[in-house]
């Protein structure tokens, strides 16, 4: 059974918060292999993760960029 982008987007997010069942993980990986839209969304979720961890961003008036 193939999953669609809507289902894939949900699994992409949940995969960042818990371990997906191996079957789900395989379906997601297969979908990502074929789907440009979802591959972009995956990269964007990963970027969002890095960006949020660095919020509130560069520390302009102390000692240079804030590094967590």
């Amino acid at each position, binding site marked *: 059974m193939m999953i669609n982008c*809507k289902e894939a987007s949900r699994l992409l*997010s949940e995969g*960042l918060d818990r371990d997906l069942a191996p079957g789900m993980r395989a379906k997601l990986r297969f979908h990502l292999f074929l789907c440009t839209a979802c591959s972009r*969304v995956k990269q964007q979720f990963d970027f*969002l993760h890095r960006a949020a961890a660095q919020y509130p*961003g560069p520390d302009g008036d*102390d000692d240079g960029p804030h590094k967590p």
Partner: protein
Amino acid sequence: MALNSGEILDPRDLDRHRPQLLKYAMLQLRNHAQAEDAVQETMVAAIKGAQGFAGGSSVRTWLIGILKHKIIDSIRKSSREQSLDLDRHESSPDDMDVLFKPDGHYADMPADWGNPEEALSRQRFFEVLEECMESLPKATAQAFAMREVMGLDTGEICENLSISASNCWVLLYRARMRLRECLERNWIGAGGR
């Protein structure tokens, strides 16, 4: 300039960071009185523990580290007193349907963000991110902030917000989808990169 460890922190130097700390606390608590309290407690803890400040990181980074604990305490306290009013709209992912066609494809093709890493060195990017986080519904924003800004695991978040794990995943899903869309419109689409 970073202070060397052992150097005494000037309370005026702490005060300079108050607006930024208040914004940070407001984003996660969505309640002015609670945010003010968390920042005030942070300032008190900072003055008491000034000798615990070990150069290396900036004063702001150090203050935010203290503030995170105060925010979590505050969220825990308020969810104990009154269970989070998670309305039906926030606990169901149905509002994500508009982003997809009936066959499950994206209604609007997600854009290619290229290499967005450079944004992380720009203050303006974080202002856009902040505006996007402020536009999320309350519990959605709180769950996202605890997960991605503060780095808690979902178990701790569910416990702090007194919600189920599946509700938690829905909140985080909505947050990521909405923030993705918001950044695409207001940063990537606005030529920020």
